[in-house]
């Protein structure tokens, strides 16, 4: 026969301890789900290739600046318009623009 004191003790104890556990579990699940979403890129981001061509990155690193070198410079710019080839200091007081044909 079941001791009514035990059943009375068991019933409320189970209910009281399980509610906080359920709430904690829910909070934990929400936190984990939130972190996972923040860390993983969307599928669209995963599939999208880099828009920056590799070539242009390497050009920039090897390109001497006209104002720094004072010699052969004015080479390519990464992306956009290709600059005019230049020789010499960017701050030189005299600028000679040379329009030429190779033939």
């Amino acid at each position, binding site marked *: 026969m079941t001791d009514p004191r035990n059943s009375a003790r068991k019933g409320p104890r189970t209910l009281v301890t399980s509610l906080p556990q359920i709430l904690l579990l829910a909070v934990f699940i929400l936190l984990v789900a939130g972190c996972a979403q923040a860390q993983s890129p969307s599928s669209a981001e995963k599939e999208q290739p880099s828009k920056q061509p590799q070539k242009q990155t390497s050009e920039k690193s090897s390109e001497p600046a006209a104002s720094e070198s004072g010699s052969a410079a*004015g080479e*390519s710019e990464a992306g956009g318009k*290709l600059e005019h*080839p230049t020789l010499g200091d960017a701050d030189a007081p005299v600028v000679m*623009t040379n*329009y030429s044909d190779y*033939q």
Partner: protein
Amino acid sequence: MISKYVESGTLRIEWRDFPYQGQESVNAALAARAAQEQGKFWEYHDLLYDNQSSGNSGGYSEENLRILAEKAGLDIEQFEEDFKSDRVAAAVNADFAEAQERGLAGTPTFIINGQTLVGFQTLEVFEDVIEEAEKEASSG
């Protein structure tokens, strides 16, 4: 002139393409700007003049330009891609349009701080104009 004025910081030379003598002029201009994409414009520019061609006689055929690219140590696959790229074509076209807007009738044409010299010049002429331009720049 380069050692005397460019390396001393007095003069900057800016290149403009004005390929008005036909397809091979255009080919050469495109090739040099493709070399520019690999940081070797001036090396390629010098090779073009060292192997100068005239009258669209095949000297600046695509094959010969590729050989010059090899001599310049360029990445050939990249060179060929850039040679046909819109970016390089746009650069050459923009220079050509600029020359036309200025009403230039021939090459070479040099504009030194606003003073125009048409045709090949002696070193003395360049020296006079550069030194005069430098004086004006420092006084004004």
